[in-house]
């Protein structure tokens, strides 16, 4: 007996299934979807292309920096650029985003600087940006925890009034966590203005999606009482349109939406991971043909919306960015050991002050011994 025999829909093959929302085919052909019309200028498509290329370059450079010992670890977004840029560019400045740990493209859209981003993976701090300034919460390492924070934040927005919304990013593995399911319950019963953006990259480290869900993830939303949609996560236009629609629904009091961006993690889980132990190279080949950048490039050139000089100029920018990322990383000063003691509390305790002073004196004693 197969799962299909007992009425459980089998997780679809890489095509994403019949419900997949697509506005740009893997061949770079523009198609329409009745529920997601997208009126977008050539200039805006070129801007999206530029974003895609630049965040991939940032990611490649960071991976190299890890290999050279400059970063402790790196979680690559390779293959997920369209999901992140499409959704990230759907955000308005007032919208608050709650990332997991792989959302470098979203951070890019929120104006986080390379040094602010890399300081986490270099081990200098836990993320160098101010969440309130960037409207991007710090990265969350505990799987799924941020989805509840996002929901609570959205409940706050709801009470405050206004036109802003929240987006929460998480993975297919995270969808199994209690926190994520609790976030769905909360968002639903409180009608919170939050969009759940699940990047289903098919793998949670070594565990395939089949170990997380027996139904397509977007269908879960229905059980919690709100709409779910599956978009082609390698199609930047579809991600933009679907996220925009979901955010607009949230803004106008229609509550949460689950977006499942159907995509693929083309690299390793992190630089510490070895995907050859659990996945077939042939799978990767299938997804290479769906590359999120190539299809935009094909569309832009075939439709005459960009020429070689445009692609060259983006490439030049990418080279500059790589140099900038590298410099930002290697020039980053080491943190002061006494930072260990700072900001444990909003109202510092005398006990901790004493511990800090004690350690400072201990460190000083080495300096004195050298004189």
């Amino acid at each position, binding site marked *: 007996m197969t799962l299909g025999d007992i009425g459980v829909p089998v997780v679809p093959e890489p095509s994403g299934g019949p419900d997949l929302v697509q506005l740009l085919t893997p061949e770079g052909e523009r198609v329409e979807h009745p529920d997601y019309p997208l009126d977008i200028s050539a200039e805006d498509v070129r801007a999206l292309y530029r974003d895609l290329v630049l965040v991939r370059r940032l990611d490649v450079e960071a991976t190299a920096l890890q290999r050279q010992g400059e970063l402790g670890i790196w979680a690559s977004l390779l293959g997920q650029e369209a999901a992140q840029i499409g959704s990230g560019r759907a955000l308005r400045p007032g919208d608050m985003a709650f990332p997991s740990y792989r959302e470098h493209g979203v951070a890019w859209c929120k104006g986080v600087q390379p040094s602010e981003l890399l300081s986490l993976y270099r081990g200098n*701090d*836990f*993320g160098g940006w*101010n*969440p*309130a*300034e960037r409207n991007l*919460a*710090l990265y969350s390492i*505990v799987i799924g*925890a941020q*989805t*509840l*924070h*996002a*929901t*609570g*934040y*959205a*409940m*706050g*927005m709801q*009470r*405050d009034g206004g036109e802003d919304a929240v987006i929460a990013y998480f993975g297919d593995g995270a969808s199994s966590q*209690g*926190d994520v399911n*609790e*976030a769905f*319950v*909360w968002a639903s*019963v409180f009608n919170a203005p939050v969009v759940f953006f699940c990047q289903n990259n098919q793998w949670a480290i070594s565990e395939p999606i089949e170990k997380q869900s027996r139904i397509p993830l977007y269908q879960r939303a229905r059980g919690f009482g709100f709409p779910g949609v599956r978009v082609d996560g390698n199609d930047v236009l579809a991600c933009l349109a679907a996220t925009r629609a979901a955010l607009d629904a949230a803004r106008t009091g229609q509550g949460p939406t689950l977006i499942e961006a159907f995509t693929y993690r083309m690299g390793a889980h992190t630089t510490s991971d070895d995907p050859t132990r659990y996945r077939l190279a042939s799978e990767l080949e299938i997804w290479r043909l769906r590359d999120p950048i190539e299809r935009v490039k094909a569309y832009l050139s075939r439709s005459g919306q960009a020429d070689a000089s445009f692609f060259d100029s983006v490439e030049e920018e990418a080279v500059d960015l790589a140099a900038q990322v590298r410099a930002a990383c290697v020039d980053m000063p080491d943190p002061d050991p006494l930072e260990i003691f*700072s*900001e*444990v*509390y*909003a*109202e510092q*305790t*005398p*006990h*901790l002050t004493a511990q800090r002073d004690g350690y400072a004196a201990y460190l000083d004693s080495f300096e004195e011994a050298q004189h």
Partner: protein
Amino acid sequence: MATYTLAKALNDGLRAAMDADPKVLVMGEDVGKLGGVFRVTDGLQKDFGEDRVIDTPLAESGIIGTAIGLAMRGYRPVCEIQFDGFVYPAFDQIVSQLAKMHYRSKGNVALPVTIRIPFGGGIGAVEHHSESPEAYFAHTAGLKVVACSNPADGYHMIKQAVASDDPVIFLEPKRRYWEKAEFDQSDTPQQLHQARVIRPGTDLTIAAYGPMVKVALDAATAAEEDGRQLEVIDLRSLSPLDSDTVLDSVRRTGRLVVVHEAPVTLGLGSELAARVTEQAFYSLEAPVLRVGGFDTPYPPSRLEEDFLPDLDRVLDAVDRSLAF
């Protein structure tokens, strides 16, 4: 002056905090219509509405996790965990998220979240209803942990906890909820993180908190009949721990007995014993003694009287200390 139970004093304190700041929210299981299983939030939803007194789904991680988000948005959530044994599903949100956000964000994110936990035993409940989880939280940097022991402190300390910009684990001795005392709400409160000498004495110091404060006071009264003057300290704050007040006292009395319900191993008593040994060694006439729960799970309720420190076990420790 008026007479209050601890539950009523806490209720008034919450009410005052909500009146003073429209950003204060109360959230938890059954806190609305029911007023909480101990009625600490009685009537709050009726007076402040369902938007400020939120009956949540039955999911503790959800309660704390969403409170974190609300706090990031400028709210001051006061979460109720229905019973101590049910805080563990939220443990990750508390120790990995709530406690660390201020530090991780270099001070950019403050999380003024208060987590009220009815704690401790002595009410004959079924399992998971009589735990003493304070050491887990006191061990976690970034959290502040306090325990009230009487109505006056209940009233003032909950207001101070809610007003604090740090996350506060607010422990309420559930077996003292119905005990009464007189106090004046307009009195100036003591600072939240200070211990207090609640009975002066010269022969020995007893330090206790929460439900054990009454036991310590009873022990001092009983010892007085034998001509012994015991000083009793209510620690009130477990993190930060005001050991100065304890050290001052021990320098005068030369002896310390610490009393708590939680298992003694790696409990608050261990920390106090270590600090007193480190900082007042030459004042000590006897080793610091600890009276606490055994290092066992909390037993079935018929055995809880054996598990919990009582008057006799405290007096026994007093005798052993004085015999040195």
